[in-house]
């Protein structure tokens, strides 16, 4: 930039000894309204950061909704977050962090002119994105199966209660609590020695967990099983007397304007860890608002998921540009094939057989495309990717976007899955 003022646009480029592309010294990557590649690069980056700022502001609205709602209904969060599987969330955090690493490394590779390494790392990053989506689909499908979907498909929503009637609703909630709730945090370790009632449920819980999570997370069953053995029955647990007996609902909680709203002193004393808060113990106003937790959950993770998909598409675009014309012959159909494979993978989770048609069609088309491209590969020059030390802006900016996706998840994970 320092000589931007002294050089009239264009002359600087003609003098540029590093301009390797183009016959007459004109850098094909330099737009005409920029004086130097440096100016172009910093402008692009500034623009990207402004865009990322607006992205943060957009998510900020959802974080605001979360904060206000959690402030108003802390028990809703303590209770409802146990339906989320924190181990799947944790694994997904690691998956995203790993793909962030491969992306950051891809930027490095492009800066070092290592185009083959760049291609490999971009592919690994996309695989990381698929990994995240794959695990997220398991979670979403569990929620759907358990009736914890958004809107009226959530059993806590008023429209659902109206539809099935109060008796059936009570039964659903009881069933839900016994089969799907995340075994209480550390309940296993902390209270293992204590005599607890309700071990009758432990088998059911163990089975349900095993079924629900399958082999998705190695070691998860072990954890679930360990915690399940001490899953208490709320009212009969040793040293636990129902603090709400005979009291009107609202007496269960301290008025939230007195302090950061929490459980009533009696509840807190009986169960200082809040581990075993059950639907029964919730105040009426919280029972009414449970569905909103899931709406917030789906809105936040859904918008984040959309960003994951967009990020993966952008990385795919960069990947296409990181290889030469011949490489592109392979990358195009293989990228499409990955979509087909993912659709087929979704069958394992959802057992929705129409996906076989779609996934199969996509896969078949991409394989035919690949075969066709293989036959013409020899007539296409091998060439090289577009990125080098002198021009890697797209890799860098798409990387920034991908890191933002990671950044958002770093906040979503503890706020949604790890509520204490």
């Amino acid at each position: 930039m320092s000589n931007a003022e002294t050089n009239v646009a264009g002359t600087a480029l003609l003098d540029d000894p590093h301009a390797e592309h183009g016959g007459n010294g004109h850098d094909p990557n330099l737009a005409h309204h920029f004086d130097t590649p440096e100016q172009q690069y910093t402008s692009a980056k500034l623009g990207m950061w402004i865009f990322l700022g607006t992205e943060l502001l957009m998510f900020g609205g959802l974080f605001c909704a979360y904060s206000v709602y959690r402030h108003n209904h802390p028990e809703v969060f303590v209770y409802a977050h146990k339906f989320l599987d924190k181990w799947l969330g944790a694994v997904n955090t690691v998956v995203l962090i790993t793909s962030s690493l491969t992306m950051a490394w891809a930027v490095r590779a492009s800066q070092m002119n290592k185009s083959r390494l760049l291609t490999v790392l971009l592919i690994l990053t996309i695989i990381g994105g698929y990994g995240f989506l794959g695990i997220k689909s398991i979670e979403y499908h569990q929620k759907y199966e358990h009736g914890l979907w958004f809107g009226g498909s959530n059993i806590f929503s008023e429209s659902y209660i109206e539809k099935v009637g109060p008796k059936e609703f009570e039964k659903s909630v009881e069933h839900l609590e016994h089969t799907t709730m995340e075994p209480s945090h550390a309940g296993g370790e902390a209270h293992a020695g204590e005599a607890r009632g309700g071990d009758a449920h432990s088998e059911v819980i163990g089975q349900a967990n095993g079924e629900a999570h399958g082999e998705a997370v190695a070691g998860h069953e072990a954890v679930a099983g360990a915690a399940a053995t001490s899953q208490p029955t709320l009212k009969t647990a040793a040293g636990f007397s129902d603090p709400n007996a005979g009291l009107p609902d609202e007496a269960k909680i301290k008025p939230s304007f007195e302090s950061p709203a929490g459980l009533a002193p009696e509840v807190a004393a009986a169960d200082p860890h809040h581990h075993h808060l059950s639907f029964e113990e919730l105040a009426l106003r919280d029972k009414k608002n449970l569905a909103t937790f899931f709406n917030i959950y789906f809105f936040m993770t859904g918008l984040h998921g959309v960003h994951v998909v967009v990020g993966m598409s952008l990385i795919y675009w960069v990947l296409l540009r990181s290889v030469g014309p011949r490489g592109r012959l392979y990358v195009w159909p293989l990228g499409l094939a990955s979509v087909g494979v993912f659709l087929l993978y979704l069958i394992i989770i959802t057992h929705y057989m129409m996906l076989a048609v779609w996934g199969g069609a996509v896969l078949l088309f991409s394989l035919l495309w690949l075969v066709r491209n293989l036959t013409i590969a020899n007539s296409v020059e091998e060439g090289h990717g577009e990125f080098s030390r002198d021009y890697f802006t797209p890799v860098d900016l798409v990387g920034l976007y991908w890191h933002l996706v990671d950044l958002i998840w770093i906040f979503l994970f503890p706020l949604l899955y790890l509520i204490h």
Partner: protein
Amino acid sequence: MSTVAHAHDSHAASHGADAHDDGKPHIHVTSPLLLLGVFGALLVLTVLTVAVTSIDLGPLNIWIALFVAVAKGGLVVMYFMHLRWDSYYNGIILIVSLFFIALFIGIAILDTKEYQPNMEAPHQGQVLPVQDAR
């Protein structure tokens, strides 16, 4: 290629006050060791934030969770997004965005607190759908 030396030069030049450069981007290449170090730190912090959930620290829990998240975010922003070596303008944009989000959430919470007593009242003694369930 001569570009390896070039990158080094231009990076050095970017620190000079009025160094004569060739208009190439001043790039900072992050070392593999640093990338892996940040990755390791992020993993450790992830384990930490999961582990700390099982310890009851009262209201401190949420603040620890947020502190760990901010630390992780800071690492991602500074090293993976190389803000540490970037122009200050980019950092200012980030900080201003975060400031306005904090303002937004902070004032919304203040407002919520203000009206809390009023919001509690209407529920008293009312028969609500879930009540029918008992």
